């Protein structure tokens, strides 16, 4: 009985690897990308790209398990929801008013320590922001919105 169950799990486990999953990757940086229009110090850009872009842009840097079903399905869901709320790759497509709102929301999320998501950081320790880094990011975004 146990053997049979294991066999079923194995067969299904291998089988689902063949279910196609669209990837969120794009080699070119779009003209509408946030950093194509906004001047930022390179360390700020690096921080935003490494801590936010996996779920908030058209270009995800997938982890090793990022091709393994079913994990990839969870990732895709997170990415879809993340991009729905904020997509840095198409930031310039937002109206000016919406851009200010997105930035306001980014500041609020950073201040509350809600982003990057806790679950995301379990597997992405490199994306974790120190308090000082968070403060620098908040400063940067606040300056944008008062301009």
């Amino acid at each position, binding site marked *: 009985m146990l053997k049979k169950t294991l066999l079923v799990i194995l067969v299904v486990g291998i089988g689902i690897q063949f279910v196609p999953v669209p990837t969120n990757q794009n080699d070119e940086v779009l003209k509408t990308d946030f950093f194509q229009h906004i001047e930022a110090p390179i360390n700020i850009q690096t921080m935003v790209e490494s801590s936010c872009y996996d779920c908030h842009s058209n270009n995800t840097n997938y982890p090793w398990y990022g091709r393994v079903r079913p994990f990839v399905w969870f990732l895709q869901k997170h990415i879809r929801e993340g991009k729905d709320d904020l997509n840095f790759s198409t930031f310039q497509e937002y*109206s*000016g*008013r*919406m851009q200010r*709102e997105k930035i*306001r929301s980014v500041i*609020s999320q950073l201040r509350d320590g809600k982003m990057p998501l806790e679950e995301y950081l379990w597997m992405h320790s490199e994306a974790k922001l120190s308090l000082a880094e968070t403060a620098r990011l908040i400063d940067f975004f606040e300056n944008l919105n008062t301009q």
Partner: protein
Amino acid sequence: MKRVLFAMGFAALIVSCGSTKKDETTSEKKAEPVAKSSKAAAVENPNGNALTPVLDAYLDVKDALVNDNQEGAAKAGGTLAVALGSLDLSAFPAGQQKELKDIVEVAKNHGEHISESEIGHQREHFEALSKDIKDLAGIIGTDRTLYHQFCPMYDGNKGGMWLSANEEVRNPLFGSSMLKCGRVEEVIKL
């Protein structure tokens, strides 16, 4: 002619000053159309009515937040999003439609967030939303007198604003913890 109308309005104000405060506001309302008719009331009034469901829902959110009522604010936030969605923008001049569409999009987003957040988050969205509603009323016009109120203590002393239909301050950004913090910055009239 203008002078006569103004004098009449002024007289009405003076007469009402002797009575209670409530009478003062009602007589102001009565005097208002008289003063306006010398300008362009015909353009502004029909449009102002278009905003009635939006303002009703917005003020419901505000009242709920004044009472620290998360559930009430959530419900009114949902109503607000629907009301904004059913605004017929094609009825407005082509030159204003882009701006109106942008405002409605952002304001609707706030309404939706208010309908599903905890109260601190609701208040953040409400504060940002208030600026959009004020801009909306600035373009479309309003069906009632609105008081732009401001509390300098909100958001770590950066300050925050909202609109109220009453002159008396009841703070929706703090609720019961700071109910009377705030002042009237501007009166937006019919």
